[in-house]
């Protein structure tokens, strides 16, 4: 089986880094992985999607529409944009943050409307104030690390990798004070997930990896 994880956000938020953290941890646990990234022109502040596929049956790099098991997004609009990738039995983990595209006179949707769409498109939605937490703790660009902590709780219990492997990856992020903050951010995300994510959700993800 294959576990399909759609990662999305705005170019510059550290989505590629998040994908690599997941991918490296999985490979360290000997789980095959393919990560299809977005580079170059589309990366500059634009809408970014990264396809992460884990498991023995992985051949193709891209997730088919309606075949995503997890959506991990660093921004609400970009979560909604890629929600058609989700299957009905999917979960969405989304940074509770709206970033307005830098386009003159653009009309932004209401946060609650976007959240409602995400709720309907997934089996369960988890909102995480990742950017807010990261900013408070002193690393404004560490939202992706909070999200990695959150995802690690789920993927760890589902057997994609173990927490220590993920922690080893986080320890290589940033220097000095920022490195310390990142470790804290990872822990915050992890612990938040441990309080919020139920066993049936874990079993759902686990089944995809078997």
């Amino acid at each position, binding site marked *: 089986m294959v576990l399909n994880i759609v990662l999305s956000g705005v170019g510059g938020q550290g989505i590629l880094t998040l994908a690599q953290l997941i991918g490296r941890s999985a490979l360290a646990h000997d789980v095959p992985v393919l990560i299809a990234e977005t580079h*170059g022109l589309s990366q500059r502040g634009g809408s970014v999607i990264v396809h992460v596929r884990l498991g023995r049956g992985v051949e193709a790099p891209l997730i088919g529409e309606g075949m995503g098991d997890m959506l991990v997004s660093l921004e609400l609009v970009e979560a909604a944009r890629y929600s058609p990738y989700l299957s009905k039995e999917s979960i969405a983990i989304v940074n509770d943050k709206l970033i307005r595209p830098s386009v003159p006179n653009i009309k932004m949707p209401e946060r609650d409307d976007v959240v409602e769409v995400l709720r309907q498109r997934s089996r369960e939605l988890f909102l995480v104030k990742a950017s807010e937490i990261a900013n408070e703790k002193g690393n404004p660009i560490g939202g992706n690390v909070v999200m990695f902590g959150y995802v690690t709780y789920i993927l760890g219990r589902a057997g994609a990798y173990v927490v220590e492997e993920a922690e080893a990856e986080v320890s290589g992020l940033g220097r000095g004070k920022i490195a310390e903050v990142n470790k804290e951010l990872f822990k915050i995300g992890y612990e938040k997930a441990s309080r919020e994510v139920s066993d049936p959700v874990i079993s759902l993800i686990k089944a995809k990896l078997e």
Partner: protein
Amino acid sequence: MKFKDLIKLTQGKYLLLGNEAIARGALEGGLGYASAYPGTPSSDILESLIAVRDLVGIKASWAVNEKVAFESAYAAAISGVKSLVAMKHVGLNVAADPFMTSAYTGVEEGFVIVTADDPSMWSSQNEQDNRWYGVHAYMPVFEPSSPSEAKDITKYALEFSSRHKHPVILRTTTRISHTRGPVSLGPIPKPVTTGEFRKEAKYVHIPANARKNKKAMLERWRRISEEANTHPFNRVEGSGDVLIIASGIAYAYVKEAAEHLGLSGKVRIVKLGMTYPIPARIIKDEASKATRILVVEELDPVVEKEVKALLQDEGIRVKVHGKDFVGYEFELTLSRVINALAKFMGVETGGNVSEPVKSVQLPPRPPVLCPGCPYRPLFFEIRKILNQEKIPYIAAGDIGCYSLGFNPPYRLQDIIIEMGGSIGTGNGFGEVTNSLVIAIIGDSTFFHAGIPPLINAVWKKIPMIVIVLDNEITAMTGHQPSPATRRSMSYIPIENVVKGLGISFVKVIDPFSTKEVRNTFMEALKTVKGEGGPAVIIARRRCALEVTREIRRSGIEVPLYVVDEDKCIACRICYDWFACPAIFPLKDGKAVIDPELCVGCGACEQVCPVKAIRPAKPYDKEKIESFWR
């Protein structure tokens, strides 16, 4: 682990980007020399090789354009050094001249030409299928189906090229180049990096020699076509009377689609790792056992046409499908291949796409100039001048980050076709229209293809304002050095080149100063209208991504700017006209700066009419500025 950290390892499985896998494969194949010009999705190949060149002892460096990169690597290969040249698909158009003739002369040692195609045009002006170049030039085309196979095929391609003394194409696509997957490492032999050029008449392509070379090339081609049948990356799997021929990455999709539809093992798949020439014997044998054939390939029907031609020649009457089921345009996706295969086999797709529910209107999010981009204040001010002065103009654009100046509010890229096209088309616009021609080109693009058209403009006295956006780096593709990079091998100031052409109006300005931009632009306008000929403005300030990274690495805190809510009058200039992505409107229209995105460049300070924008806390401006200049 980074690519560099893996260099001493001779075994084990690691997560590598497809492009890193190609670099690794080349090293394991005994590569001695590599050259390239950056271009998405190819750039990481040479970047990886440069990262390890001193550790392995190879020669690897960026060239000024693809043609020079090609010629350099070709010269190495005909001097007995295994070599590689990498470029994006459109780069091969630039290198097409030496490319075509290199197949005639052949090579002494392995020569792999990597073309990284970009189906769906994620970062390109077109999605040309460069497998045609193989057809065009009598050049074999290798196509990996995964990052892991990319390593193996590159290594094999170098050996193959050495053995046949013939250059080969390695065609990769965005989804191979920029997909990370597990790759098994092998040992890296000690590279040979020097050789000798044996003088032979075959390298002198005057007609008499060229005619002999053509015959010799056809003889090599016959041997290569024969070997396609025993090539280890071409193989047959499964059984049944339906035959699927899958080329390169299409194999990965076909394999999963078949699994998804419960067809695994019930169809026969010919997997092609060498897509041109096709393995005639294999295809003939398999086709004669088949009732129907479907060719699955990305973009053009290259293999499909070859298969149809072969079966016609052989008198095998089986219906061959391909593009009629798969479609011509854009990259393959799993859903697309599942649908095509289901339709072809007459089975249900087993779709589980969630139904559209309550929808919400989502705003578009095109890529934009980064916060701190030195081009923003310049575009902002020129847009303002053009609006105020109501001058009819054509902003002839080019390839680079500044291509994003096409979008509102700047709208300063009226045409973008190819590298160097800004000054190139500017020549024609200057001759046939009455509009002011403003050619906008970056530093790396200027050196790549901007100089000959500028010479032409001087020569013909074409009125044109040329703005060279000099951020001292090839930014869009991930910050490779250009000759304008002060910290690279040897620095070539653009003004020296321009002055050398005899242009009298040459000004170097700081694009962060809107005042300087305005004054210089107005002066250039006067010059162009008066004496005619081109006037050149060089706008020099370093790329914000580079600067921010360096500030963070040196352990200095990046400054932040904030908006004083009491002073802000909600005029919208900073977020709608200056359009910095770090600045947002609040519900009342007042501005606010997002600390996650602000890089503390301070350029917004000057565009605020009421001085409401200021640093969040005092910082050492001189110290920070030293990174930017």
